[in-house]
């Protein structure tokens, strides 16, 4: 059952990602990117990461998808759509080399007991990971409290930076 879910989600995901790269209509590419984000959330569920699946739908499929579609509508003047640049062939060769290297390393590595870990291979357990993620994030000794605070400052800086960048300077 979970194998079937994985293969269906993986096929839709890779197909949508290839369509994002190849489609000439950038608006359709953005909609397919949102589909791709949804299938990534499904893959998280097969990995027993329910909290992250919810976050993926909210942040990626929701917020970033809307933001990208807004940007496409605000910058819509390209009559040629979404063309390739002059590195089309070179970039393809480089990406293929990167893919071949990564797959070679993944297949060549001896994963030992990790890959067939019986606890990991069985169906997702019937327990939410939310409290465990919170424990991992905010633990007193081994937690990530300072990076969490830095991330909030980063988000504030990004918010102010985005407002400053798109502000209409003439009408002040």
């Amino acid at each position, binding site marked *: 059952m979970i194998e079937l879910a994985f293969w269906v989600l993986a096929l839709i995901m890779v197909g949508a990602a290839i369509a994002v790269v190849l489609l000439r209509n950038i608006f359709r590419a953005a909609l397919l990117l949102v589909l791709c984000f949804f299938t990534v959330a499904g893959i998280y569920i097969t990995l027993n990461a329910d909290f992250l699946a919810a976050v993926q739908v909210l942040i990626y499929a929701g917020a970033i998808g809307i933001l990208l579609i807004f940007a496409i509508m605000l910058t819509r*003047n390209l009559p040629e759509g979404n063309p390739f640049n002059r590195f089309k062939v070179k970039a393809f060769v480089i990406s293929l080399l990167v893919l071949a290297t990564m797959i070679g390393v*993944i297949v060549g590595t001896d994963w030992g007991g990790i890959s067939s870990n019986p606890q990991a291979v069985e169906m997702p357990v019937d327990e939410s990971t939310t409290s*465990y993620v919170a424990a991992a994030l905010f633990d007193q000794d081994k937690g990530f409290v300072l990076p969490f605070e830095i991330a909030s400052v980063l988000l504030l800086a990004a918010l102010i930076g985005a407002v400053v960048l798109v502000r209409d300077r003439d009408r002040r």
Partner: protein
Amino acid sequence: MHLGIEHYLILSAVMFSIGLYGALAKRNAVAILMCIEIMLNAVNIAMIAFSRYVVPDVVLLTGHVFAIFVMTVAAAEAAVGLAIIISIYRSRQSVDVEQADSMKG
């Protein structure tokens, strides 16, 4: 056959390569940003797969924590990146990255 960690890692590698190809070969700046988001998602899949397979009991979820930080940075990056693209579009009436070369030496 059961799903091993290789399945998820190869899926992640395929997604990363598709995103890399798009980021290198596209002319529209928004399309490049979309392909960078695909690459970040591929990295997140790999990290959550490692978190699931290496530490299968749900106690130590460092991979999940890293994925949350990647999502935070991706959201900030998308907001600032799209603001820069809209700013470039205002001054040049184009989002073609090959025309935005005024800093080229």
